[in-house]
């Protein structure tokens, strides 16, 4: 398997602000790679380091083996779908899509034919003559996608491309992007702050925190075995247990995570506490207990008895489901 993008101890410091700090990263060719993290965590700066709008202050970046640390954006064989789409307002959709071919010197009829082909791919065949202002948000997003793809980039960068769309459209576009990536076999690098989006779309993902990668792995790795407290908190839905609670439950005095699906209610146990919240989910009920000041959720499958709010209960779990992690 070839690697599309490699970061070797890459840093981008702005004065004293370490936007990206010592990042090592390998993105496999043909994969759908997500960069996940809260705003300011360095994920967008990493994307801009690949596109060339930022230069690393340390380390080396390789795209298909070639060191591009000093290559300007217009000479890199990568294209970006920008967060606000950045369509050219004075050009119609066809000329927007054909722009990359025009600046490379391709003739008018040839580039327009290619642009129409790309517009058909994103299901906008009839829209070539319109101006971007006459399109909906979802349509603009497709134009931005077509405009990037027509250049046949080896890596496609997507900067929160679905952020501006409403929920229903976003879900539809998620499926479509994934299908498109599969069909074209391209490497997609996708930046998002939405953990569900990252987990459901990516083949592998990097979770960013304060300019560093907190964890890199498959969605399942990251969901089931978060490396740090930050990852468990950010990716969500897992219970995060402080060291004293872990020890009270029979583990070593370390931070640990425990998935609600692996947690069951027990009549008695080493630690018990009152039920503070109940949420009926259809396939079961999510019961939240207050154990020594920490909220711990357990999933009670449908058909089993559910305690009342305020009742006291304890938890049980298989020790192999208790996942220990670093404190960072």
């Amino acid at each position, binding site marked *: 398997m070839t690697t599309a993008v490699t970061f070797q101890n890459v840093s981008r410091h702005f004065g004293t602000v370490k936007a990206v700090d010592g990042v090592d990263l390998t993105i496999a060719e043909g994969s759908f790679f997500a960069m996940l993290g809260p705003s300011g965590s360095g994920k967008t700066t990493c994307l801009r380091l690949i596109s060339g709008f930022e230069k690393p202050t340390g380390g080396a970046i390789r795209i298909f083996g070639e060191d591009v640390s000093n290559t300007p954006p217009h000479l890199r064989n990568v294209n970006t779908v*920008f967060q606000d789409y950045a369509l050219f*307002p004075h050009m119609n959709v066809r000329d927007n899509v054909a722009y990359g071919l025009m600046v490379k010197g391709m003739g008018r009829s040839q580039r327009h034919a290619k642009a129409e082909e790309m517009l058909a791919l994103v299901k906008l065949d009839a829209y070539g003559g319109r101006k971007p202002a006459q399109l909906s948000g979802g349509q603009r997003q497709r134009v931005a996608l077509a405009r990037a793809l027509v250049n046949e980039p080896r890596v496609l960068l997507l900067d929160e491309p679905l952020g501006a769309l409403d929920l229903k459209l976003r879900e539809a576009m998620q499926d479509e992007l994934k299908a498109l990536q599969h069909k074209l076999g391209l490497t997609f690098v996708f930046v998002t702050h939405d953990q569900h989006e990252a987990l459901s779309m990516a083949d592998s993902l990097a979770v960013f925190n304060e300019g560093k990668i907190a964890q890199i792995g498959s969605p399942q790795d990251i969901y089931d075995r978060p490396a740090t407290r930050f990852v468990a908190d950010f990716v969500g839905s897992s219970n995060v247990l402080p060291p004293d609670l872990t020890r009270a439950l029979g583990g070593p005095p370390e931070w640990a995570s425990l998935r609600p699906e692996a947690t069951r209610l027990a009549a008695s146990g080493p630690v018990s506490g009152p039920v503070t919240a109940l949420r009926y989910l259809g396939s079961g009920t999510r019961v939240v207990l207050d154990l020594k000041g920490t909220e711990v959720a357990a999933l009670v499958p449908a058909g089993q008895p559910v305690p009342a709010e305020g009742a006291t209960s304890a938890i049980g779990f298989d020790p192999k489901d208790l996942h220990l992690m670093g404190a960072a």
Partner: protein
Amino acid sequence: MLSERSPLSLRAAAIGGLLFLHLPILLIFLYAFTTEERSFQFPPPGLTTQWFTTAWYDRPDIWPPLWLSLKVATIATSIALILGTLVAAAMTRTAFFGRDQISLLILLPIALPGVITGMALRSAFGIMDIPFSVWTIVLGHATFCIVIVYNNAVARLRRLSGGIMEASADLGANAFQTFRHVLLPNMGSALLAGGMLAFALSFDEVIVTIFTAGSGAEAKTLPIWMLDELIRPRQRPVTNVVAIVVFAATFFPILAAYYLTRGGSETAGMGK
């Protein structure tokens, strides 16, 4: 309509104010057709179009000031278009120490009274031993023309999303291609509007011109020639004919600039 009709007295006052401001302009037009050539008397004793013929055929003294004014306005506008756009680009695309202070300094010539600008330039020319010429007038005019172009260019640049420049580079365009295919088409109407306004302002500028033009006949722009004509009455309506020309040369560019930048957040004329 949600708003109530304003009271009659307020509307009458508003209409009165507008008439007071604009009727004298109509009088300028009217006196270009009067048969009385020594004083402006109302109503005119008779109407004639002879002054247009006189101005065209018998008054060679009109042409040098007219050409001078056109020349000065053209050169000052060209300088302003280049420098004003460059400054605007620097102010919006880069951040540096003291940027806000420099932006204030750029706007200053339009806020300063013309007399101050004129005096300052005149003494500077004196100290540096620069003889008065067309170029000193051009310099004087360029100080405020740059501000007009700058204001229009900055407003447009702020409104343009910076993303489209990056998108252009991302799609493989070099800096020149980005300028030619993305920046210029989006800046065009703002620069045209700024340029026309600058031209109009330069064309009828009097105060700074008096300070920077010296005293010879070769330094007489059209507005200054008109001022002289009013003091020394001789074929007075000819001055009004010229006034109509000045009106056309300044009003239509300003009107065009207004329509070009309408609907945007542009500050087309601001000040002056």
